[in-house]
């Protein structure tokens, strides 16, 4: 298991959005990856690939509002030996271009990087049509894809580099709002497929990714006051899942909570449940978006309404422990 607890932020501060960290890292690393070509479907000022585009205009193409063509072009570039990266809103690039992801990227197993921004309900006021809440499920259903959901600014930086260093198709999910820092300043521990243990505990394991990692740390702190020692895992890679970390969580803590800003079906919760059921069945409880669309509202109001909070995680932990 990678990750030392010394890298965890000691106090809860708001950091940059994961899309910003991704965009700045892409811009900074562009010179180190001369084969990288970035293609946009006219949302680069939202997904933050515009920073790369301004610095490397000969390796940046805006092909218009056409996600199917976007992903197809990425497949062609990769077939010709480039490393292509395409980004759009998570909802559009996974839903609109799904058959292109399947046929023009996954089936030939090409070196294409897919970045879906504006994930989850935390985008706020724009509402349900813009909220990618099924993207992780869809990406996990593409054979050979690596699927990554970073928790915060430092994690997103490290994930971006790991994505570029991985040979093969990767889906990276990033979010719109500024989010609490999980990791201290400096390079965050990050290895594809290896969960980061942020806090050890023996009563229950809180497993999360993306926006839900920070609330799990806060929930663990609150539970400690009740005498419950919660382990916290940042499961930034949904596929391939860290089965070793899951087995240890089940064996050593006997109860699990999975928290994610995603629909119940097919996300991290489903993947954890599938593996834990096989490795060592223990009670599992879930904090997620259930089976419903989002709506308009401020990010904070939506996070509260949809239960993406430390209080919900703590309540789920108590339930899971009671079911042991």
């Amino acid at each position, binding site marked *: 298991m990678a990750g030392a607890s010394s890298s965890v932020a000691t106090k809860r501060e708001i950091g940059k959005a994961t899309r910003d960290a991704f965009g700045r890292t892409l811009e900074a690393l562009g010179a180190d990856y001369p084969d990288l070509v970035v293609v946009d479907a006219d949302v680069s000022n939202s997904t933050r690939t515009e920073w790369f585009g301004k610095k490397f205009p000969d390796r940046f193409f805006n092909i218009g509002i056409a996600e*199917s063509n976007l992903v197809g072009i990425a497949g062609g570039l990769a*077939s010709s030996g480039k490393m292509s990266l395409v980004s759009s809103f998570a909802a559009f690039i996974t839903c609109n271009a799904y058959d292109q992801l399947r046929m023009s990227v996954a089936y030939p197993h090409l070196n294409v990087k897919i970045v879906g921004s504006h994930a989850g309900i935390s985008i706020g006021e724009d509402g349900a049509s813009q909220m990618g809440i099924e993207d992780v499920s869809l990406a996990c259903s593409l054979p050979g894809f690596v699927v990554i959901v970073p928790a915060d600014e430092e994690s997103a930086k490290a994930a971006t580099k790991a994505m570029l260093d991985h040979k093969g198709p990767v889906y990276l999910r990033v979010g719109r709002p500024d989010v609490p820092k999980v990791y201290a300043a400096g390079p965050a521990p990050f290895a594809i497929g290896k969960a980061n243990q942020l806090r050890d505990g023996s009563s229950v394991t809180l497993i999360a990714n993306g926006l839900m990692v920070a609330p799990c740390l806060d929930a663990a702190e609150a539970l400690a006051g009740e005498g419950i020692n919660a382990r916290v895992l940042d499961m930034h890679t949904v596929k391939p899942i860290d089965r070793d970390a899951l087995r240890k969580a089940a064996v050593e803590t006997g109860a699990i909570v999975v928290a994610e800003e995603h629909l119940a079906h097919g996300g991290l919760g489903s993947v954890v449940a599938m593996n834990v059921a096989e490795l060592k069945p223990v009670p599992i409880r879930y904090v997620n978006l259930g089976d419903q669309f989002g709506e308009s509202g401020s990010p904070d109001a939506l996070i509260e309404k949809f239960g993406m909070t430390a209080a919900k995680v703590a309540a789920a932990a108590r339930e899971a422990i009671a079911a042991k």
Partner: protein
Amino acid sequence: MAESLEELRARAQSVRRDIVRMTTEAGSGHPSSSLSAVEFMTAIYFGGFLRYDVKNPHWPDRDRFILSKGHAAPVLYAVLGQAGFFPHDQIMTLRKLGSPLEGHPNMTRLAGVEASTGSLGQGLSLGVGHALAARVDKKDFHTYVMTGDGELGEGQVWEAAASAAKYKLDNLTVIVDRNHFQQTGASEDVLDMDPIDGKFAAFGWHTQALQGNDMEEVLIALKRARAVKGQPTCILSLTRKGQGILKLLTKLKDENYHGKPLAPKDLDEALAEIG
């Protein structure tokens, strides 16, 4: 070494024989969809238009050919086999378990196949990607894409057409195999996309229309396409589905004959008609 007109005509007949033999052996497949495309495929691979090296199939400077109408895989396998990308007799393993000659092309299993296709409408975007890669790398390779006519119902084709025009991709040629039929009937009846060349022209493409089963016309069209500057080229290839065995298909009372092989009892008659 480019073959002569007479050699190309003879090779086209040989490609046709391969198509009907391999699909009948397989017991399934799309021979009629393959037969319409024979002249262009033969001319591209053997007429001196496509730069390739069978010993180095991933040569970065090679020209690319993408069969967007992936169900016509038999014609692709016939020309690749005759070109020497794999032992020619391997065509008789078409669609069998373990054979890299799958029902639709799989680029990860067979040298010379540039794209995994079969879900229609995706090949032209791939071609745009290759053409942009050439531009980024300042290479002079050319990319050919062949689509069907029914395939033009897919909206992605037109997304790709618009983007190719935006970047003035004169290193990209699409050949529309206008064989007038698709799965359930005549293309005009299912979804009339005429004027096809007019649509591509409206998107900013250079266009040509010609009789695509006439080898002499095909050679002229391919030469012209390479001379176009500042625009991608669309060649509207007017063909007959099942070209080469039309008399037999008439006798079988099925001029579309979509997605099925000839019965073993009809094979000799087909080969005799091809000549």
